[in-house]
């Protein structure tokens, strides 16, 4: 009993360390200044902290405009993922159509093409379509990346809502659309919000496509990639930290729903 508990606890500790230590080290580098970053052996508790580096980083020219582009792209990606993903998920959950299983697999296959291979043809196509170097273009690529999750996750969300709820709504006077809006949507809403935020985070963190498809209107990740390559280490840490924080906060906010839709019993 105690041995098993010990193994369990050390496993938990390992997993926590696996995710928390890098974040902690990045945070340390961001607030500790040049000395902490270059010090060896590493200390886990900095002697002095200052927000000077972070403030300096945020003052770097272009960071705010890049952040704005990032937000714009992520919001667009979130909207597209929901508008396309939720109906597709609903169809997968509610209708038996020929090839539904294949469709599920094909959705995942969109993730099988490495963006690296697609980069050049995409860039050319986007230039032709006048989407190059525009947030809309990047948002479309990010939607392609986030959509499989949006579809499959919303499918499992809708599947978890008994069909009888909808049927009861139909019998008691609702059209299909009204039944969806009055009964299905309110029940699925927390999960849909989680899906949306997940799409936001995917877009926020994506760097490769964003770097290839933009020149002047870069997203924050793509911008940092170019700017920080020449910056001192502690500024790089500050940039990394600024990138991590929103994702972590968002994921933390919706963790309950993410767990629920990945089938981990947490409720």
């Amino acid at each position, binding site marked *: 009993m105690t041995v098993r508990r010990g193994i369990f606890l050390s496993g938990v500790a390992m997993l926590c360390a696996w995710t928390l230590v890098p974040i902690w080290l990045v945070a340390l580098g961001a607030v500790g200044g040049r000395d902490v970053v270059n010090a060896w052996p590493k200390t886990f508790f900095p002697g002095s902290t200052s927000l000077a580096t972070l403030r300096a980083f945020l003052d770097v020219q272009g960071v705010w405009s890049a952040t704005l582009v990032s937000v714009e792209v992520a919001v667009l990606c979130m909207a597209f993922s929901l508008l396309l993903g939720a109906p597709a998920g609903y169809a997968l959950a509610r209708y038996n159509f020929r090839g539904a299983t294949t469709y599920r697999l094909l959705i995942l296959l969109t993730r099988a093409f490495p963006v690296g291979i697609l980069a050049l043809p995409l860039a050319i196509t986007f230039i032709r379509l006048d989407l190059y170097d525009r947030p809309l273009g990047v948002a479309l690529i990010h939607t392609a990346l986030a959509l499989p999750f949006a579809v499959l996750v919303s499918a499992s969300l809708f599947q978890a809502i008994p069909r*009888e*709820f909808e049927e009861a*709504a139909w*019998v008691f*006077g609702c*059209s299909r659309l*009204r039944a969806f809006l009055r*009964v299905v949507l309110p*029940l699925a809403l927390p999960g849909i919000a989680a899906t949306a935020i997940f799409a936001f985070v995917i877009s926020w963190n994506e760097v490769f496509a964003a770097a290839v498809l933009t020149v002047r209107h870069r997203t924050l990740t793509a911008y940092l990639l170019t700017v920080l390559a020449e910056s001192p280490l502690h500024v790089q840490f500050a940039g990394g930290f600024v990138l991590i924080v929103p994702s972590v906060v968002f994921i933390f906010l919706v963790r309950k729903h993410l767990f629920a839709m990945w089938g981990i019993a947490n409720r």
Partner: protein
Amino acid sequence: MADILIDGIAKTFGRTVALERVDLRIADGEFLALLGPSGCGKTTLLRIIAGLETQSSGRVLIGGRDISALPPRKRGLAMVFQNYAVFPHMTVRDNVSFGLRMNGAEPARTARQVERAAALLQIGPYLDRYPGQLSGGQRQRVAVARALAVEPAVLLMDEPLSNLDALLRLEMRAELKSVLHAAGTTTVYVTHDQTEAMGLSDRIAVLHAGRIEQIGTPADIYAHPATMFVGGFVGSPPMNFFALQRHNNVVQLGALTLPAPPVDKLVLGIRGEDLEECSPEAGFPFTVQVAEPMGSHLLLTGMAFEHRLRVVAPADRQASPGLVMHFRPLPGRIRWMDAATGAAIAKGAP
């Protein structure tokens, strides 16, 4: 007037035939149970009436109006689902008033009818709670109240009691009967539980393999099953059957000589309580295998002529496995069936 006419309704799923040409007339205010084993098509028929399933052919008329092609919301009926389907994100009050609100009833009328339905099903104290805070039985009451609140002409119920425990089911059954009788609603009630069907309904339609085997009052179906299936499905214990051969217009059953109808291969059907113990020369032998004291009676299971037989004996009769007893059918209680078709041979036949 809300009589229901089911006119040649058939339903196939791919190659599977769920219903083959069902005809049924349900009178205004009548309580009709659709009774049958799982997979017999009873739920499919109910869902076709509700409009949740589309028939392959045939028509459904309510009060003379053909509703076959209408969506569920325009059919003027209410339904109680097997898993209640009470909306978890609405209070009990919002659930009960849902149908009225969706149909644009004025608030005063909505409030009045919700109050009445809540009082009828005794859920008044819970109106502002959420379904998650209620027990299964209370949720079921909410589902029934939601259906009755719209004061429907036709009420459809799909095994509404099957998720309740035995005691609660008994209580809800009696309550449903009085509530629905008071409301005067035409009710179609799907169940696989024959005691539920017998206890609740004015008439029962027994379904088997997509066909209606028999329609009749509970007493009629119990006493005069139209087919071997009905005899074997309705009643607890089910009807006993003996396959017999006719010789010279009679059949031999142990020491008994019985006049038989003019069919060569016969099946004799007899209910367990229609057998009485008698002397060896007046009946047939029966070897007891299992004796189950049921309180009100003693249920004996055993063999007679290589047929499994269930006999209802008086509660004070002592019997142990291996005992050989003798029984004879009570006069007038034998039901003859045609062994080839499984159909009952008409009462009037010699």
